[in-house]
């Protein structure tokens, strides 16, 4: 048995898979960013949010791409260039880039006027981005997501319901009606949580 239980012949194929997953995560992140940023707005620190999102998506993709680079356990007596490179890798691995990208992208979306289906599509793309990042990071097969399919379907239904609730005309003018719609969306999420034990099998 070779280390990691991987055959020598399987290594190039696995490396190719990893590169594909990394590229998929990067493209999904870039797509979310472009989707949320257009059309361009100029208020509410939009420029900073755009800059932050670009940096976070790019750095997150770079982290995934450099995840397989081996790091020596002992960094004593290494040349300055090598120590700088190791410090850069450590910085890439420690900072939560994806969380930053999610926050910045959602903030960019908030700056736009209400467009519920656009936001719902962005939500689905963000979930796909996070799942692709997870698969690229852990090297797991996409089959590992199969047990979550029903929960993801329920989540998609809630996402659509949330978007639909956003499109409903308000019962009357004022903040009260908007709050009512929000409570309705929250109730939908709570209902989803209640049916969860029946949807998700507890089989570790």
């Amino acid at each position, binding site marked *: 048995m070779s280390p990691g239980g991987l055959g020598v012949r399987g290594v190039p194929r696995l490396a190719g898979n990893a590169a594909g997953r990394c590229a998929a995560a990067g493209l999904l992140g870039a797509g979310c960013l472009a989707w949320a940023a257009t059309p361009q707005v100029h208020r509410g620190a939009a420029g900073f949010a755009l800059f932050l999102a670009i940096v976070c998506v790019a750095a997150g993709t770079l982290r995934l791409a450099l995840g397989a680079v081996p790091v020596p356990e002992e960094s004593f007596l290494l040349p300055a260039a090598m120590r700088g490179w190791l410090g850069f890798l450590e910085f890439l691995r420690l900072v*939560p880039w994806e969380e930053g990208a999610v926050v910045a992208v959602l903030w960019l979306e908030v700056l736009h006027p209400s467009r519920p289906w656009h*936001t719902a599509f962005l939500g689905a793309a963000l979930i796909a981005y*996070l799942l692709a990042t997870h698969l690229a990071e*852990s090297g797991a*097969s996409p089959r590992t997501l199969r047990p979550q399919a029903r929960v993801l379907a329920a989540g998609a239904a809630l996402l659509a319901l949330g978007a639909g609730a956003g499109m409903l005309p308000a019962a009357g003018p004022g903040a009260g009606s908007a709050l009512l719609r929000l409570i309705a969306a929250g109730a939908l999420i709570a209902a989803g949580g209640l049916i969860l034990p029946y*949807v*998700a099998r507890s089989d570790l």
Partner: protein
Amino acid sequence: MPSMEPNEPASRAPGTELALSWRSSRHARRLLTLGLFGLFLATLTRRPEFAGVAAPALLLLAAGRIQRRPPRVTVRAGPSSRRGFEGELMALDVAADLPGEGRDGGEVRWTWHPGLAIAPAGPTAAGGPQARFTFIPERWGRRQLGTLDVVLRDRWRLAEGHATLTLPRIDCYPAPAEQRTRVVLRRLPNRLGEHPARVSGEGIEFFGVREYVPGDRQRSINWPASTRRGRLQVNTFAAERSQDVVLLADATSDVGEPGSSALDLALRGAAAAARAYSGVRDRVGVITYQWGGASWLAPGLGRRQVYRIIDSMLASDAGWARGASFRRLPRAALPPGALVVVFSPLLDQRFVETLRDMRERGFTMLVIDVLNAQPPARRRGAGGPGVDRMARRIWRMEQEAIRFSLRELGVPVVHWDGVQSLDLPLAGYTRRPLAARR
């Protein structure tokens, strides 16, 4: 290089039950960020579509909380052999017992942190319920294999259970040097062995011709000699005897480059000598000298004795005096008439005095000088480079004086660099029996 008998594989090694500490995975933290920030924005802007954005992430997290997580995991880890030689490729097999788990093989992640002087020969991280790590022990000694981090992920990869296992120790033996020839004493004890003695006996090496006496074997009659002399002559053969060999390893000074230091060379040379003399049925023992103290192993026969000798030398790896005082060593440790083969850099004055004392007590000794280093020269000394040069010259003269004084006492001193075979420096003493001058 000889290989050791294999140890039991990891599947049969005793398991260690480890408590798992579960915490959220990085994936779960990202989903939580999306869910909480979506809810926050929905509340802040009163736009329900952001609550919809938060919903799938929160549902996944809530569903992940329902999954059962084992509080403990049984890990079996064992090296392919508990004993190995320097530079020998070895393996560490690890396996995890998971109740109803491990079917898809991606639930367990291993990260191995090798111990001191253990060089990994492959990746140090692996996945799956079973894994194998390969390594090479770089230097002799009792070596800790290091620690093993076990990360168990739940089926949805939203939580990670962490545990750390301290790996067992292995005995890494010094790689023996090459030695095929042996130094043999002129006067051998009256014990059956393989060295031709200078008396007639029942060996196979021709010793001489004498007149036939009743009782001699007919097959030993030398017919050409009988024809010439007119009387029956018989061939006589040299007796074959064995000798006692005591290896004296000086462990006081470990100078030189790590891996080829004086102590490295002493142990490798002693291991080679133990194998060479045991191979011809000599009784071999060892004394490890350390700062006035000594640990010893009485001479014995057989291949097992070789491993006992190396074990004894490894046990005295602490660098502190232990065991008996050198002056009070029992007769069993240092039998009279034994050949004493000394491996030393001759840097400790007390050890040199001990050698002189042993020589005066009549032991036949042979010193193998394993010193291959000299004091380093400073670039900018307090008195300039000339002072350093002078100090090194004085030091070299002192070393030469020590060796000269031993030779004057009748103790041969040969130098060994640790690279070439031990047969080369010993060539002058292996061609003919070594006589003890009194």
